[in-house]
């Protein structure tokens, strides 16, 4: 009950953010966006024909009315039809979102888990050679471009070694899933690991320095117990926050590169095609839904805080 009330209050708080995101995307993509009048007209149109098409497209309406229409589309999940394929945008999303999730989930989870593991290792040996090796490798990892990693991995595993497919997504059972998901997963883990390790190391090093860690040692706790109960459990808030806020980033930006490069029919590929062909209904839907996802994540994140830290009560959660 408390959680429900809290969620509703948070949802209300998310409204300005949603309005802002939709306003920006509306202004940039619709209001100042490409004028589609001429695409719908025959050659040498008359002034009347032009006016008719413009009113059909709603171009003659005032700014706020058009923005209102845009919001209504978003609220009813009615984004219209893709400019390039003519398919309903909702149908496209229904088909592609599961592919993207299946493609990215393993890499995302592995990137976080390995990052935490390496962060713990480095934090425990802080200042020693293990720490220096881990942080050094993290900086190297951070310095490699995602695109370069994708190209190199595809080349290595797909072309030179020939172990995995170069392109496509022909998944029908577990072996074929593993066959197609491995190289993209390796690439996304490689790219995420540098940043994740560095971030988690910094967080965990801070927790390692707490008084209660010293207390635990003074009472004979083992390293594993200390790392789990004193370090990790106390670092859950930054860990959860980072994980949660990486989700939209990975789902949109990560999938964009991986899917377009490996030719995998997910949201990222659809978005990429929409960017290159200027397919506005699709882009509007993706931007709008990402904003909704962000607000949702804000709320879930705050509820998770409560779960991980007994000192936080939902009534007065302050999100940084």
């Amino acid at each position, binding site marked *: 009950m408390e959680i429900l009330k809290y969620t509703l209050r948070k949802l209300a708080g998310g409204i300005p*953010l949603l309005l802002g995101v939709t306003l920006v995307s509306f202004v*940039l993509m619709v209001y100042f*966006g490409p004028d589609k009048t001429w695409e719908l007209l025959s050659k040498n149109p008359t002034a009347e024909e032009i006016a008719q098409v413009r009113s059909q497209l709603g171009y003659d309406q005032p700014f706020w009315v058009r923005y209102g229409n845009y919001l209504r589309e978003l609220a009813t999940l009615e984004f219209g039809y893709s400019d390039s394929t003519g398919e309903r945008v909702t149908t496209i999303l229904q088909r592609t979102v599961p592919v993207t999730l299946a493609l990215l989930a393993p890499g995302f989870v592995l990137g976080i888990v390995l990052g935490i593991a390496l962060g713990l290792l480095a934090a425990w040996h802080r200042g020693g050679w293990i720490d220096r090796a881990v942080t050094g490798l993290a900086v190297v990892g951070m310095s490699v471009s995602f695109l370069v990693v994708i190209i190199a991995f595809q080349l290595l595993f797909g072309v030179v070694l020939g172990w995995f497919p170069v392109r496509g997504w022909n998944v029908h059972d577990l072996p074929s899933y593993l066959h197609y998901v491995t190289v993209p997963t390796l690439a996304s883990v490689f790219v995420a690991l540098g940043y994740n390790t560095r971030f988690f190391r910094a967080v965990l090093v801070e927790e390692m320095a707490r008084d209660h860690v010293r207390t635990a040692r003074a009472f004979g706790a083992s390293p594993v117990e200390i790392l789990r109960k004193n370090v990790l459990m106390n670092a859950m808030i930054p860990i959860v926050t980072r994980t949660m806020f990486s989700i939209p980033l990975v789902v949109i930006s990560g999938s964009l590169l991986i899917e377009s490069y490996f030719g995998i029919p997910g949201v990222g590929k659809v*978005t990429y095609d929409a960017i290159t062909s200027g397919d506005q209904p699709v882009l509007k839907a993706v931007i709008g839904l*990402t904003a909704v996802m962000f607000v949702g994540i804000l709320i879930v994140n705050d509820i998770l805080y409560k779960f991980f830290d007994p000192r936080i009560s939902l009534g007065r959660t302050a999100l940084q």
Partner: protein
Amino acid sequence: MSLPVHDINPGADARLQPVRRPGGISPWSRAFDRLIGDRPAMAGLAIVTVFFVIALGVWFGWWGGKWAETGDGQWLPPSPEHWLGTTILGQDIFARAIFSTRTAFEIGLVVAAASTLLGALFGALSGYFAHTAIDGLVLWLKGVLDSIPFYLFVAAIAFALDGNPWAMHIAMIATFWTTTARLVRGEVIKLKSLEFVEAARAIGLHPLVILFRHIVPNTLHILLVQATIVFVAAIKSEVILSFLGLGVQDGVSWGLMIAESTSEVIAGHYMNFIAASGFLFALVMGFNLFADGLQDALDPKRSGR
């Protein structure tokens, strides 16, 4: 009137120790000493300096000018004449990679300078007028920009500006200022309750004078570090945006070279890819090492080393 800069470190230490150490060593010179002693950071600075000289040379026309010239031999292997071989059009890959260094610095410097200025401005206003409408507006704007996926935002700006070659820069500046602003806001909130600000207020200085003459200069350490981080982010983003067709419109860049190479590597022509990604990696790595050392030097508590 010049007030002590950055020496005020609130907390127990500040109460127990004199603000000025005997001998008058300023925090900046202490940070400088730490930075000089940091070998990885110095190595990073050396790498960045080499690249900067390369970029300057291109500006002055000393080298890299022949990047667009097509020659007879296509896909030539590396030779004394063409150090890294040639492209399908017979262009010298080394010259193209060299010229792209200038492109990278142009993007990095423009984006880093503009987004740092913007971040300082918005962060300072929002921190000084914390919990007022100004602060609310800045935070709202930051929240909005943070929740739009970056590549889509660039695409949207590119649409709105109808293929303007600055669309990429504008989009980067518009998104990268938010982190700087958040950090500056926090620091300004901390600084504005300190004595020297109280003193400035007591002698009746205008709030904006206090803010921009006396408070903002004390956030310089944040701005410096952020500028280096944004520089790296900008040149890394350029590569991906150019691959997506949203990046550099004319000239040549590492991103365009890598984008070209995506179809070439399958056919076994690696030089374009190796050259561009190698240059990119070296510069980004150099900057990362330097940024790391800079951060540690300015805030020794940070990494606990």
